[in-house]
């Protein structure tokens, strides 16, 4: 069994209103050195062993998990015993 940890982030240049709101909140808590916040998504997908697991995860991300118009993704694959 493999655990795939997928990180989905907004592409550079795509406005992130939620990140901006979080940044403003951090400023109001006096964290004045915060210069930018981007909010993304984290997913864990459990996969049974198969030989081309990476290309499968790429395909999942392209087809559904991320929207390539606005989002980038990266992932790590861990072995689970």
């Amino acid at each position, binding site marked *: 069994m493999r655990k795939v940890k997928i990180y989905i982030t907004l592409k550079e240049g795509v406005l992130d209103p*939620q990140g901006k709101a979080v940044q403003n909140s951090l400023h109001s808590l006096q964290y004045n050195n915060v210069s930018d916040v981007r909010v993304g998504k984290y997913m864990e997908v459990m996969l049974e062993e198969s030989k081309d697991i990476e290309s499968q995860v790429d395909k999942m991300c392209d087809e559904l998990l991320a929207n390539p*118009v*606005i989002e980038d993704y990266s992932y790590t694959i861990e072995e689970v015993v």
Partner: protein
Amino acid sequence: MKFAVVVFPGSNCDRDMYFAITDALGQKADLVWYQEADLSSYDAILLPGGFSYGDYLRSGAIASTSNVIKQIREAAEAGKPILGVCNGFQVLLEMGLLPGAMLPNKHLKFMCHYETLKVENAKTMFTNSYEEQEEIELPIAHGDGNYYCDEATYTQLKNNNQIAFTYKNNPNGSVEDIAGITNEQGTVLGMMPHPERAVDSLVGTTDGLRLFQSILTHWRDKHAIKA
């Protein structure tokens, strides 16, 4: 003319769409459940607003992988008119029938009020009852209506006359005030404002009815030539 209104779990403007066709336009419509839908006998397909699958993952993303989507692609290839309003627009973007994507509104608020729109292209099968550059009033009701596309895509939309409607006072941060776009062939329209909520003067305006009349006019013209 016979319209299909595709109903997903979480659609909530499906009945408004149905009554816009049956009561206001005076044509036939069916509410078709997405799992059992057979779209082959319909002349036009309407994807209503709402919150399909509770907007899980991204608005319209889960609906865009359901089985009925294959039939919608086939209908698009056959050149049938396909209209997606609000969540329906989001589904069309997620399935890639229209270019671009939706982001949360610039100020993160769900907005529900009337907006003034400009008709940017009055030559499409959805807009032939309007005048070019005419200003119309339609209600909006969305949280994720901030249309995004990159510059290359925008140039393409502009050069192919795919921008159908723009906002006069951009409420949500959409690129270049875009409120509605068509595909390259002009047979698929996605828009955030709700024409189906503006079909009776009792509720304020009939500016939305003319969009459905446009579809009907186009359909009649097309079939009159064949006959």
